[in-house]
């Protein structure tokens, strides 16, 4: 694996499968009475969150703590965009505190990339969601969840059909999933009204569709994305009701799915908008399991980046070991 995890594109298929296998081991830990490994004892993981995201932050926090790392939560709401302390100065502060890994959530696309490549910090940088760019650990936990359901017994996701439905334009989850799932051999179809698909999506190597009903009967996974009601004020669609009718997953549409098909959502859900309550709470829904898997996958990522297990981590980590 590379030194940083900034984009799902940073992962080769071998890397991604290593993360999934490691996550499987980490997950089995959850069933033990003592849920803690000493792997990252003495290491410091900083959660640097410029945006509110309680669920992602506590997921990373739980992951780091179960690996015995020291965790510092740095909530820096009000980034340099609002004339607060700059990203650079925050980074220098963390560097001075001796962070081994910085988990960063930022409203600006590319902020983790800047953190990793501007010479401000020497630690590993993990992108926990940047603007409308990427959210690679979400894609890993989604892939892990699919893998557990659809590819048991050492199988793969080759040829599995995944429909990602909703506001692709503004979704970092969709971008990371489109990249990672293709790396893992799955066939991805992005479903949205034309206004919510990015320009140039033809180059992503994915299928696109404006017709949800045509796509989901063939899908093995239906992943619903959150759609903010405010988007209708910017004319991305006329009304919330029209959006729900055309692109929402309700009980009627759920009945057209294959028996094994699972329904996913990265959360937070807008019930009644992109997904109805009966679907979200149905047996097909693995939405709660996604949260559990998130901790296991983030443990795997931190472990692989920081433990030197793959032999590719940087020299400063080994200095810290001394």
């Amino acid at each position, binding site marked *: 694996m590379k030194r940083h995890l900034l984009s799902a594109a940073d992962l080769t298929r071998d890397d991604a499968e290593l993360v999934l296998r490691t996550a499987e081991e980490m997950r089995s830990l959850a069933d033990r009475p003592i849920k803690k490994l000493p792997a990252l004892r003495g290491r410091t993981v900083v959660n640097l969150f410029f945006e509110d995201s309680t669920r992602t932050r506590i997921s990373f926090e739980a992951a780091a703590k179960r690996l015995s790392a020291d965790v510092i939560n740095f909530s820096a709401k009000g980034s340099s965009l609002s004339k607060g302390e700059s*990203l650079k100065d925050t980074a220098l502060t963390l560097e001075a505190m001796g962070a081994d890994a910085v988990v960063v959530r930022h409203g600006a696309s*590319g902020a983790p990339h800047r953190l990793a490549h501007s010479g401000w910090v020497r630690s590993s940088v993990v992108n926990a969601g940047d603007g*409308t760019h990427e959210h690679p650990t979400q894609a890993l936990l989604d892939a892990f969840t699919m893998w557990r359901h659809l590819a048991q017994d050492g199988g793969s996701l080759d040829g599995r059909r995944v429909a990602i439905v909703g506001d692709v334009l503004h979704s970092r989850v969709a971008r990371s999933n489109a990249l990672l799932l293709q790396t893992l051999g799955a066939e991805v179809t992005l479903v949205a009204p034309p206004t919510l698909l990015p*320009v140039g999506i*033809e180059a992503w190597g994915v299928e696109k569709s404006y017709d949800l009903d045509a796509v989901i009967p063939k899908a093995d996974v239906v992943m619903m994305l959150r759609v903010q009601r405010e988007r209708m004020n910017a004319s991305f669609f006329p009304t919330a009701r029209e959006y729900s009718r055309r692109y929402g997953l309700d009980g009627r549409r759920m009945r057209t799915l294959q028996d094994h098909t699972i329904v996913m959502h990265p959360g937070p859900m807008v019930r009644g908008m992109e997904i109805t309550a009966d679907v979200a709470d149905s047996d097909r829904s693995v939405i709660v399991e996604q949260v559990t898997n998130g901790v296991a996958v983030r443990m795997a990522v931190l472990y692989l980046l920081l433990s030197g297990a793959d032999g590719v981590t940087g020299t400063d980590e080994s200095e810290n070991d001394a």
Partner: protein
Amino acid sequence: MSAYLVKNVSILGGEPTDLLLEDGVVADIGADLVADGAEVVDGAGLVALPGLVDLHTHLREPGREDAETVESGTQAAALGGFTAVHAMANTEPVADTAGVVEQVWRLGREAGYCDVYPVGAVTVGLAGEQLAELGAMADSAARVRVFSDDGRCVSDAVLMRRALEYVKAFDGVIAQHAQEPRLTEGAQMNEGELSGRLGLTGWPAVAEEAIIARDCLLAAHVGSRLHVCHVSTAGSVEIVRDAKRKGWNVTAEACPHHLLLTDDLAETYDPIYKVNPPLRSTADTQALRAGLADGTIDIVATDHAPHPHEDKDCEWAAAAFGMLGLETALSIVQETMVDPGLLDWAGVAERMSYAPARIGRVADHGQPIEVGAPANVVLYDPAARRTVEPAESASLSRNTPYAGMELPGRVVATFLRGKATVLDGKLQ
């Protein structure tokens, strides 16, 4: 006043000859000139061009003297071979009154490195709501002829029409920053496959082209002159070409960075490449070069836009738009236009001196190097190569996108009315 005798220099790439600059004018041209007391400059291998004229410079003074001052900006201009620059109006306070434009004009005179022609704002405070006192600026000591809300678009069609009409009274021109505001809300980079992938809000070509098309139609309708700032797309070149074919009085500029750099540089997320309008595709750079070669694009203008370090040493979305340009413009024109054979040195003189002076109605600049003409001359060594080193810039800012890049050519000397502002590549 000192005199300079330039030996064996090639005027616009012609046969080597001697060139005598004395008493502020070109005193003599010919073989084996002798002039007692004149400082002799070896011109062998050098091209003599008329002093360059920039129609689009941000000098930042008054208001942002941390980024640039009139003095530092004109020093950078002189090092780049310019003898005249037009200072854009988006200062703090905005250059929307006779008082501010006269202040900028006076600062330029005091600095003495190059003549400064202030650009007046079209609307009060660049707010796009009410015309500024265009006539007062035109009648002031600064004699403003170019008006622009650059940085913002005069997007209101009625206001644009009135501005185009009004400046006819004093032979002014509206230089439009063509950017449809609603289509570019939050825009960060060229809209395309890459903007979608990087999650950076797109700045679509149509937002530029729609305004240019509208403004060409407006200018034709009211019979006014229109100048289009920093044309960046192939579609814009087509629209301007069509307007010229119809005989409309439209001129256009291209910036060096849009001739050379492309949007894939955004993949680094390094905002040193963030500029407005944004870097576009390779096809766009090719169309701009072709347009500049055939005269559709009348001039090269730098859009020199200094910013302090902290405004670029941050995440992309938080960074300021703009890049330095004065000291590298001629080299980039050589690289993109002269060396590939698209433009000869006479063409460079036209695009970077004569035409911008005509558009800006600047009488004392942009004249051919002939006996009796003002001695505004630049000596340029096209055979030199240099690696751009930001710390060497005379600008107070360091936001050059060309750092570490090897570029052809070097300005050896710049003369402003016969006085050397640059000699041996160094400020005087």
